[in-house]
């Protein structure tokens, strides 16, 4: 479904991604881990079109999407969330989803919105102001909701569980699993919490200094000495 070939991303003198190649199969849930500054979010930004890569190709569903502007990537089915929630200010929760659905999915479908709101537990807050009246969990849920309203085939979640209480985190992880099954999604998840990764992702890749240093099952990856070295204290592995 998603194939990255030799993606390089440079910012001035700094190279954030080194000729990185990665492929994600349809229906797969992939965990993306690595220390801070490893290039995880940069990778998301390159895939979703926030940045144009300095080199390499991005194929999505067999199509080269590297030249597509950001908004068109959403339309071909790449949905993503931001680590720091980016609600559309001035709009209500439901209006946030409406905009995402109208432009990302191409047409409005109130029933589908209801379902998303229900699944994410936002139904009772749908007319609340998105910028000011949501708790952190709800902000995160809205972040996922917007991405879902786009009707993505690939959903990229950037630390969507970060900063949540342990119990909430578990509930949210289950919600994500339900959502994945319901919409038949392929997912890439950036997450620091190993337990969550293990619960959600059959496959994990590790990034360090913009390079892919491990790829495999969670058990294999987290026992890889190179990964442990790179992770210097960042994970309890």
């Amino acid at each position, binding site marked *: 479904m998603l194939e990255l070939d030799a993606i390089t991303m440079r910012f001035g003198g700094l190279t954030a991604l080194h000729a990185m190649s990665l492929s994600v199969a349809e229906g797969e849930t992939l965990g993306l881990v690595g220390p801070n500054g490893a290039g995880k979010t940069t990778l998301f930004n390159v895939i979703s079109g926030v940045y144009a890569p300095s080199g390499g190709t991005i194929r999505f569903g067999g199509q080269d999407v590297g030249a597509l502007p950001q*908004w068109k990537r959403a339309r071909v089915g790449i949905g993503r969330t931001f680590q720091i929630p*980016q609600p*559309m200010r*001035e709009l209500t929760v439901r209006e946030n989803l409406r905009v995402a659905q109208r*432009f990302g999915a191409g047409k409005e479908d109130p029933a589908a919105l209801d379902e998303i709101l229900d699944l994410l537990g936002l139904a009772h807050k749908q007319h609340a102001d998105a910028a000011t009246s949501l708790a952190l969990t709800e902000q995160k849920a809205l972040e996922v909701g917007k991405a879902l309203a*786009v009707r993505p085939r690939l959903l990229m979640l950037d630390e969507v569980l970060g900063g949540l209480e342990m119990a909430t985190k578990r509930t949210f992880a289950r919600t994500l699993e339900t959502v994945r099954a319901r919409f038949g999604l392929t997912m890439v998840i950036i997450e620091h919490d190993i337990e969550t990764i293990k619960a959600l992702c059959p496959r994990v890749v590790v990034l360090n200094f913009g390079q892919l240093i491990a790829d495999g099952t969670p058990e294999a990856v987290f026992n890889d000495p190179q990964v442990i070295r790179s992770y210097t204290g960042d994970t309890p592995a």
Partner: protein
Amino acid sequence: MKHRMVVLVALVLAYGAVPLLLGSMDYVMSLIIAALTIGGVALAWALLGNLGGLVSFGHAAFFGVGAYTSAILVVDHHWPVLLAMVAGGVGAAVASVATMPALRLRGPYFALAILAYGHIFRILAVEATSLTGGAAGMLSIPGFPTLLGINLASKTGAYALILTIVLLFAWLYGLIRRSTYGLALRAMHDSELATRVVGVPSTHLKAAMLVISAFMTGVVGAFNAHQINFLDPEYAFASSWTVLPIAAAIFGGYRTVWGPVLGALVVFLVDQLVFKELMPSGHQLVFGVLLGGMVILGPHGLLPLLGRWSKKEASHAGA
């Protein structure tokens, strides 16, 4: 329901009571027509500012292009006036495409790049003598026809025409505002990244607002040309076609649909009927003070009542 009644009463007053009560006073009608003309531009300007998030300092460019397009089509090619006015809007919309490179500029730079376009269009109008009559301008431009038994060239007719134009534009503005396009546009101001990532082509939408705003301004410019029956580059591209609408829009509340129109009516009529009576040749001074005062005290500070009222109006319109 109550809202419907308000609208109905307002329409009856606007179309019925105003012409009946004031129709015989040419002078007052002229001022109201001029105020609505400015109101129309103010509405278009506010649409671009509010929905597109773009503050323009050169709407006179679109006003002038619309006026010239329509006048030339009528005078040289004998188009019917009302059709030519629509073409005037289209002409301004086309001109706005030429200004699109400016869309990538930030706030004040965009505002002033459009100002430069206004100057360029004006100079072109002076130089294209064979088309525009050059600096001498065009005198005796045909006025409005009689439509459905209403002589639109009369004061009352012209009033009804500009009122209809402004109402149509306000309706269109409201429609866009309430649509998902409007939602996306409003969201773009503070959260452009958030909108792009869910598939909103933000630059395209902004460009579309620019085109629509230019179209509206062009139609109003064309209206003015056929109402005053005269054009020259200096007048058609006068900076007052930019400044007065901005003042009106901010005065009335540019985040609302009706604020700009009400602002234009209040600012222009108060200036002409009150200040000018009090200070026949120094009233522009008062206008300058008003403009500055508005910014410092804030639109809701200077006219709190109107501000609150138009806010309520907006939430009705949005519902």
